[in-house]
């Protein structure tokens, strides 16, 4: 574990210098990780660095940092700026360096987002989850995360890019990678809490990778409260909009359903301007929830019953889904509707979603190497040209080495 807490049940300290070599930070983190309180009141203390003396951790950090060379800026998120980079010893080994912005709220510590991202990424190792190579601190006492480089954009960019056409089989392939990623998170008891197209980055080999674990957390203990103010609005499930504090993996599953619908629609599936409007957009599609359809819904903090009978909306019928999402087919529609059940108890879990018949019914998901992407087909073209140019065999001068063959096919 990168960030080991003293009372960890499963102490698996990463050897020094591997993932986190910032002892002063680590101490602050271990204090933090025990605290079940909002970040603002978390007891963040910074152990001053002993000046002068050759601090071993400091040296190891420097050694780690010097392994990487950072380059052009790739993108900017809410709490970090991402740069392209590579290993110093091998410039062909690309990485992305996510440098955490200095945050006014956390002058003496680290932004919560960074802690979460480091903590969960250093534990999750799956082909569909972005890999964290290393973490080091820079001279200005700021953290940098060394992530695997994912150069082909993200799923949102893909459906927005109208010069790219894609098929049902392509959608199925991308959706499957997304579902595997979230299944692996949940099986390891990690909630992502910010699943959306632009946090699903695409590797050079077209693998979809779940990234941005800045809002992730473990599943909560019984009775423990979690904040309901997570997940980007378009992807936020109704229980969170109603202010629910005890949710589970199925909150992420709602977002997964939205992302898959979005891929098939090539538009945002449930867009809105405000949190309140988000609820009405959801109700327009899924109907007004009731105690029968969602036991206990009336007890949620922000729940408001419909003012009168005529305000009660009915869910859209199957024909509406078929008209909206023809690319998913009946099986895909059935799965997405299962992910988008209003009552989270009725929603498909990640494991149930992966067991759905959609994956094994026709069409078979496109193989990774055949998926369309935003990188253009330059590489393939080049290889074809090479082959055409190389028609003449090396020993062409020697008649006895050449196969005697005439081609009548083209006549």
């Amino acid at each position, binding site marked *: 574990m990168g960030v080991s807490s003293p009372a960890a049940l499963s102490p698996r300290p990463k050897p020094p210098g591997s993932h986190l070599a910032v002892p002063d930070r680590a101490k602050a983190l271990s204090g933090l990780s025990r605290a079940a309180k909002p970040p603002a009141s978390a007891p963040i203390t910074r152990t001053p660095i002993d000046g002068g003396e050759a601090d071993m951790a400091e040296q190891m950090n420097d050694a780690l940092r010097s392994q990487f060379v950072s380059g052009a800026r790739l993108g900017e998120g809410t709490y970090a700026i991402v740069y392209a980079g590579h290993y110093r010893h091998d410039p062909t080994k690309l990485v992305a360096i996510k440098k955490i912005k200095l945050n006014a709220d956390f002058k003496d510590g680290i932004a919560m987002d960074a802690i979460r991202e480091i903590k969960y990424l250093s534990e999750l190792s799956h082909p569909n989850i972005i890999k964290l190579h290393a973490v080091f601190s820079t001279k200005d006492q700021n953290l940098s995360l060394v992530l695997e480089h994912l150069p082909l954009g993200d799923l949102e960019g893909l459906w927005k890019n109208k010069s790219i056409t894609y098929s049902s089989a392509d959608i199925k392939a991308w959706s499957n990678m997304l579902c595997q990623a979230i299944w692996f998170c949940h099986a390891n008891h990690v909630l992502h809490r910010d699943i959306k197209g632009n946090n699903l980055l695409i590797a050079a080999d077209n693998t979809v990778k779940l990234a941005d674990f800045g809002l992730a957390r473990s599943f909560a203990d019984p009775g423990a409260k979690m904040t309901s103010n997570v997940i980007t609005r378009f992807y936020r499930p109704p229980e969170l909009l109603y202010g629910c504090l005890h949710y*589970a993996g199925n909150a992420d599953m709602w977002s997964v359903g939205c992302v898959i619908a979005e891929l098939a629609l090539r538009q945002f599936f449930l867009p809105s301007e405000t949190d309140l409007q988000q609820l009405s957009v959801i109700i327009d599609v899924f109907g007004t929830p009731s105690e029968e359809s969602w036991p206990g819904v009336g007890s949620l903090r922000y729940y408001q019953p419909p003012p009168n009978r005529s305000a009660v909306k009915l869910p859209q019928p199957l024909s509406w889904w078929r008209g909206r999402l023809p690319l998913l087919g009946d099986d895909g529609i059935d799965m997405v509707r299962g992910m988008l059940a209003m009552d989270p108890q009725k929603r498909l879990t990640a494991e149930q979603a992966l067991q759905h018949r959609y*994956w094994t019914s026709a069409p078979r998901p496109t193989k990774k190497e055949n998926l369309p992407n935003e990188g253009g087909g330059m590489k393939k073209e080049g290889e074809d040209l090479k082959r055409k140019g190389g028609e003449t065999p090396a020993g062409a001068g020697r008649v006895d080495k050449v*196969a005697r063959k005439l081609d009548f096919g083209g006549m």
Partner: protein
Amino acid sequence: MSKVTSRANGGQVRQGEAGGASPLSKSLYSLSLKPSSRPRTDAASDVCPVCKSSRYLNPNMKFLVNPECYHKMCESCVDRIFSHGPAPCPIAGCARTLRKGKFREATFEDLKVEREVDIRRRVASIMNKEESDFETLKDYNDYLEQVEEITWNLILKIDVDETNHRLQRWADAQAAETGATRRTYEPDPSMAGASGVVLKKGGTQRRALETSSGNTTDTNVKDKGFNFHGLKKKVAPPPEAPFDPFDGWSIAPQYYTLQNDYDADWLTKHKREKEQLVGGYQWSDFYNRALQDAFGGLTVFIDDEIRARDIPSGDAAIGTERAATAAAGGQDVNMDDIF
């Protein structure tokens, strides 16, 4: 197949060919040298043998041939004679039944060449092995040599029926091996007389061939028509396994069994809470996590991890493998709550 060294082409013997010359160019050469039976003056080649109209009077006149007999005639004759269905060739002494659909423009001035090229094209569509299909270049060249012989037999009308049947068996055997849709070898239509079928209707001949060769592929006697030395056995690609939505990953506890429910006083209180249920809180998630946390570290050996870590990072396969074993052993990680 018997090696034919001497061919009945005006006593021409195909032996001691110059090394590099292609057999086709050889044959084209000899055909062009051979004096035509009919004096080939420009005027003669421009006159339709049926209606005697001449290109001199009608510059747009087109000559067509039918590969049944390769007798040349003008387009308007073809229209006139064959528009109402199959009819006998009007050239004296021919009388083969021709159908309008099969007529086409002659590519070569010399219709013998036209026919030879047709035969070569048909044979090549069945005999389509490449150098990489053979163990050695010599085997490949021997194969090409044999194909050349087959072609010559057809061109020179030697053992035509036998050769056609063997070609069809070969086509069937190839299709069976690769699992591809089988390709029908289309025998030389101009040879139809040889097998005694003169008037064929709607591919009767082809169907007859198919059934006869179908029998041979069904029986255990694997007569492929031909045997080529050094031909690599084609391994048909194994049928694609059904898609696995989990891509081979599984997470199951190894050191304990997970029950559906556990009883503990402090839990019972929460279990009845509506607010726990309404948000979709899953008790099984909690039991699973608690047990994973409790047993997770049992088979983790730090030394092993250090060794694994020392393999240069950036290798995704290693990380994945490690996680897979960790996951399969149910020995996954402990993650504390932040909030």
